[in-house]
C-alpha cells in the first residue's frame, strides 16, 4: 500500500474534508470522492456555486427544475441539515449515508419519521398522513373516494397508533416499521455500493486505489 494509501486524498477547497466525511459515514474515501463528482455536476447545473439549491435538486430528480413535489421537498428539507435553503457537500454525503445499505435500521427509521412529520411537531398526525396520501394520488393521477381514503387512514392508524391519540409518536413508528419493514424500502439505494464505478473521480486516484487493493 505504501504511499498510495487512500488517505492521500484530494482536498476539496470550500468543502468538508473527504477523510473526515469517510470516517463519519459508511463511505470509503474513494466513495466520498466519487460522490463529490456527482455533487459537482448537480450543484453547478443552475447556479455554479458549489451548493445544491431546490431547483438543482428538482432538475436532478425530475429532469425538470420547475417541477414541484411535496415529497421531494421533504427530502430536500432533510438533506438541508443546517436549514440554509441549500445543500452543501457535507450535508449531501451525510444524508446519502442514511440511504446506504449498511446504515442502521435506527437511522433509516428516524429519517422516515422526520420525513413524514411534515410540520416537525415530533408526531405524525393523521391530518399530515391524509395530506400526503392525497398528494400521492394527485401525483399518480389515481382517484379514490373520500370514504376509501378515510378507510385507508383508519386501517393504518389502527395498526400504528397504539395509544389511540390520533397521532404516531417515535416509539409507535419504530414498532410499526418493525412490523412492516417494506416501509423502509425507500431508504436504501443499493447502488451506493457501486458508486466508485459509476462516478470515478480523477482517473489517477481510482487506478491507484485499484492497485492498492
Amino acid at each position, binding site marked *: 500500500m505504501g504511499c498510495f494509501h487512500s488517505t492521500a486524498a484530494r482536498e476539496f477547497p470550500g468543502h468538508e474534508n473527504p477523510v473526515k466525511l469517510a470516517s463519519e459515514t459508511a463511505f470509503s474515501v474513494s466513495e466520498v470522492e466519487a460522490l463529490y463528482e*456527482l455533487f459537482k455536476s*448537480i450543484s453547478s447545473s443552475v447556479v455554479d456555486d458549489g451548493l445544491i439549491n431546490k431547483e438543482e435538486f428538482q432538475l*436532478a*430528480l*425530475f*429532469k*425538470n427544475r420547475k417541477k414541484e*413535489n*411535496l*415529497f*421531494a*421537498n*421533504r*427530502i430536500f428539507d432533510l438533506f438541508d441539515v443546517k436549514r440554509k435553503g441549500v445543500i452543501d457537500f457535507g450535508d449531501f454525503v451525510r444524508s446519502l449515508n442514511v*440511504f446506504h445499505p449498511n446504515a442502521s435500521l435506527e437511522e433509516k427509521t428516524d429519517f422516515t419519521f422526520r420525513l*413524514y412529520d411534515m410540520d416537525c411537531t415530533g408526531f405524525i398526525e393523521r391530518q399530515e*398522513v391524509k395530506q*400526503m*396520501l392525497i*398528494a*400521492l*394520488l394527485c*401525483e*399518480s*393521477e*389515481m*382517484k*379514490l*373516494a373520500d*370514504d*376509501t381514503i378515510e*378507510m*385507508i*387512514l*383508519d*386501517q*393504518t392508524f389502527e*395498526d*400504528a397508533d397504539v395509544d389511540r391519540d390520533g397521532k404516531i409518536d417515535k416509539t409507535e413508528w419504530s414498532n410499526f416499521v418493525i412490523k*412492516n419493514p*417494506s*416501509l423502509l*424500502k*425507500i431508504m436504501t*439505494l443499493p*447502488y451506493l455500493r457501486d458508486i466508485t464505478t*459509476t462516478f470515478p473521480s480523477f482517473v489517477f486516484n481510482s487506478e491507484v486505489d485499484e492497485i492498492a487493493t
Partner: protein
Amino acid sequence: MEKQVREANSVEAGGDSGPSKNGENHEPPQLANLNAFDIIGLSAGFDLAGLFGDVYSKQETRFASRKPASVIISKLEEVSKSLKLKIGKQDAGLFKLEGSNEGRKGALSIDAEIFQVTQTFHLVEVKKCNGDTMEYQKLVEEDLRPALADIVLVWQGEKEKHEELPRVLQDEQEEQEPSSSSIETSTSNMTQFA
C-alpha cells in the same frame, strides 16, 4: 351501511366486474394490503435514483388497476402465455414470470406482485429479478404494456413521459364505468374490508 353494500353489489354486478361477485369465493388467499405509508412511498419524489443520472435505469415499475384481483391474475396468465413466459405463483399475490431463452445475463425472470388497496383497486409491481436489464425494459415497453392495456388504469410515472396516455386510459375507464358514482359506491365494499 348495510343497504349501501347491497346497492354497491348490484351496481358492480351490472358492470364488468360481474364475474367477481362469484369470483369473490375464488379470490386468491389474502393479498398484502397497502397501508397509507406504502402508498405514499410510491412517490417519484422519494426515488433518488434520478440523482445518479440515467445510469441506474429502472428495474421496476408499477401500475394501478381498477379490476378485481381475479381479473388481473387471469390477464397476467394470459399475457405470460402469449409471451412464452412460464408463470409460477410464489406467495399470495406474487407471481414469477420466467423466460426460457438464455439472454446475455441468464434467463429473464420478472416478479409481478399484486397489492390490494380496495377490492376493486389494486397496485401491481413489476420488477426484474434476473437477466439483462435492457431485455427486461424492452419486454415491459414493447410487450407487457400493450398486452396489459385493458386492465391498466395508469402506469407509475406515466404523466411525465406520455401526457396523452393517462387521459386516454381514463377515457376508456369512463366508458366502461359511465357513472362516476360507481367510484363512490364501489368503495362501500369497504365494510367487508375491515
